């Protein structure tokens, strides 16, 4: 089985992030990781390969050169090979363009199954996976919490629905986006780390995927960032004082009425 996994390298949740003076771009401390939700996709791919041993796992990202590190992490976990589609000079926040490029890569490489995280934790768009499926004309299911390739042709998955879960069977080829809870991404073995350190990761020019520069550069995007603002500072926590529980409750009710005006 030919398994493709699309990942994204995102800023670490503890990285210092500053909005630049132009109010439209970010200065990010040099701390990056594989996107949290993509780790579940890589793990699901590896588990599938453990069941169907002749599978090949190819991991790919559209990103800057530093994203090779995230690709190496996927190889350390157990992926067979990786490709960086280099976005140098073509950086975009437009999910549609990213999806076009990844879909073009998938067409070129061929696939039976595509996995990716349900969303990136930086822009939180949750668009790319479903767009790629649409462009490739294949079925997809989003935010899967259970995933099993049954016989090489059918995938049985669970997704969360309001108040419960839904079980669905999907015919391959198909695309699935992965949700927290699907699995526990493995910690790489030292043998995997060594393989990843030595791995040669080819860089792909996006314009060699059957797309022109005009298809994917900034002018192709219908989206423009107008401004970025930091989240509002939360007011400090107020601890309700009181000698006894009863007094604390009285003071809490008073604060809710008089200060918060919630009652």
């Amino acid at each position, binding site marked *: 089985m030919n398994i493709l996994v699309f990942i994204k390298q995102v800023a670490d949740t503890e990285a210092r992030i500053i909005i630049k003076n132009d109010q439209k771009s970010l200065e990010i401390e040099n701390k990056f*990781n594989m996107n949290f939700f993509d780790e579940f996709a890589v793990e699901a791919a590896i588990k599938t390969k453990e069941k169907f041993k002749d599978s090949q796992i190819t991991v790919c990202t559209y990103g800057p050169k530093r994203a090779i*590190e995230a690709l190496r*992490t996927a190889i*350390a976990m157990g992926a067979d090979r990786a490709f960086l589609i280099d976005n140098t000079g073509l950086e975009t926040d437009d999910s549609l363009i990213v999806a076009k490029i990844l879909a073009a890569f998938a067409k070129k490489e061929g696939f039976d199954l595509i996995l990716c995280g349900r969303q990136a934790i930086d822009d939180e768009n949750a668009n790319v996976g479903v767009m790629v499926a649409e462009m490739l004309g294949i079925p997809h299911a989003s935010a899967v919490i259970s995933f099993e390739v049954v016989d090489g042709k059918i995938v049985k998955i669970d997704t969360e629905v309001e108040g419960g879960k839904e079980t669905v069977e999907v015919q391959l080829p198909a695309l699935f986006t992965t949700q927290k809870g699907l699995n526990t991404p493995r*910690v*790489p073995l030292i043998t995997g*780390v060594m393989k*990843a*350190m030595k791995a040669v990761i080819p860089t792909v020019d996006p314009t060699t995927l059957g797309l022109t520069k005009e298809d994917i550069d900034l002018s192709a995007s219908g989206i423009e960032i107008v401004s970025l603002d930091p989240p509002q500072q939360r007011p400090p926590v107020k601890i309700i004082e009181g000698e006894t529980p009863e007094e604390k409750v009285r003071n809490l009710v008073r604060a809710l009425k008089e200060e918060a005006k919630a009652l």
Partner: protein
Amino acid sequence: MNFSLSEEQEFFKKTIADTVDRMIVPKAQEIDEKDEFPWDLWRDFTGLGYIGLRYPEEIGGMNADKVMCMTFYEEIARGSVGFAQSAIMNILMGTYFIFRFGSESIKERCLYPAMRGEKVSTMCFTEDQSGSDLGATRTTVVKDGDGWRINGTKMWITNGPICDFCTVLATTDPSKGLKALNFFLVEKGTPGFSSGQVLNKLGCRGTVTGELVFDNVWVPNENLLGQELGKGVIYVGEILDEVRLMTGAMALGIARGAYAEAMEFAKKRVAFGQPIGNFQLIREKFAEMDTLMNAARLMIYYGAWLLENGMDSRIIAAEAKMYATEVCLKVVDELTRIYGANAFAYEYSPQRYFRDARFLLYGGGTHEVLRDFIGRTLIGKL
């Protein structure tokens, strides 16, 4: 001059940091509180293969260079010093002499299982009356038939009470000091070999440390680890710089963990209507800590680079161990000041960093011994 890590080294550093964050950091407080050897974590972590870090790939190791080794020592100590002590003993001192001098059958029995984490190893230098002063070793060894007979007691042995085998330092003649020292392999189950008192330590809890007793222990000739008699101290010299740099890297790891706790607290804790990180006297502490840690880092990794490239690293290794440990002591002290009274409560982590840091004062040479060594080496014989 190039201070950057290679892409491979950067990747290794990130991978080991992530591994420590996922597997060790969440258990650090529990390891300290229980003060029991964390067998489950040991099995999970050693199962990844890191105990073979510095050994060749042909025997299942990683063949990591010295810079990568320092990265590993630093990160694992950042997670839990209690756990790091045990793991590093297996990675470096506990297995080195077996790797260097052991016969293939000894390696099959001891080294390879230790690299897989299936056996726990240790090295025994220290006695109740000697530590940095190796020449004062009182554990004796005498030739007896086709082997050697060992008598003595070792103290402060990391992993001692749980070890499956140990490399023990013994003298053929106590009157000859450093010139009569030799290493021997002693395996669990050998008659006369037993563990004695388990120490109740201030810090590095979770590592089981204690006494090992050698009461008329007989071992065959092949258990003599060394090509020549009386060269033990020379063989120690082969890893002494790495041990000192490793101790410095562990100190830096603890300091980084403590610094991160202090930073998080300074950003969140509100006093006089604003986060305390806004106050100049708190900012000064971070400026000082960061400066000191950067200096320590440069010394450790410069030493590792010298060592890796076969250059003389004796002085810088001693200086880096001493300096990084003193920096660590300063940083954990500042953490307890920034944290305020909660740092004095067992419920919070600062007291753990504060206690753990003290242990590094002694391993790899006390700072009094190191200062004397550095000064003596610099001035030379007058």
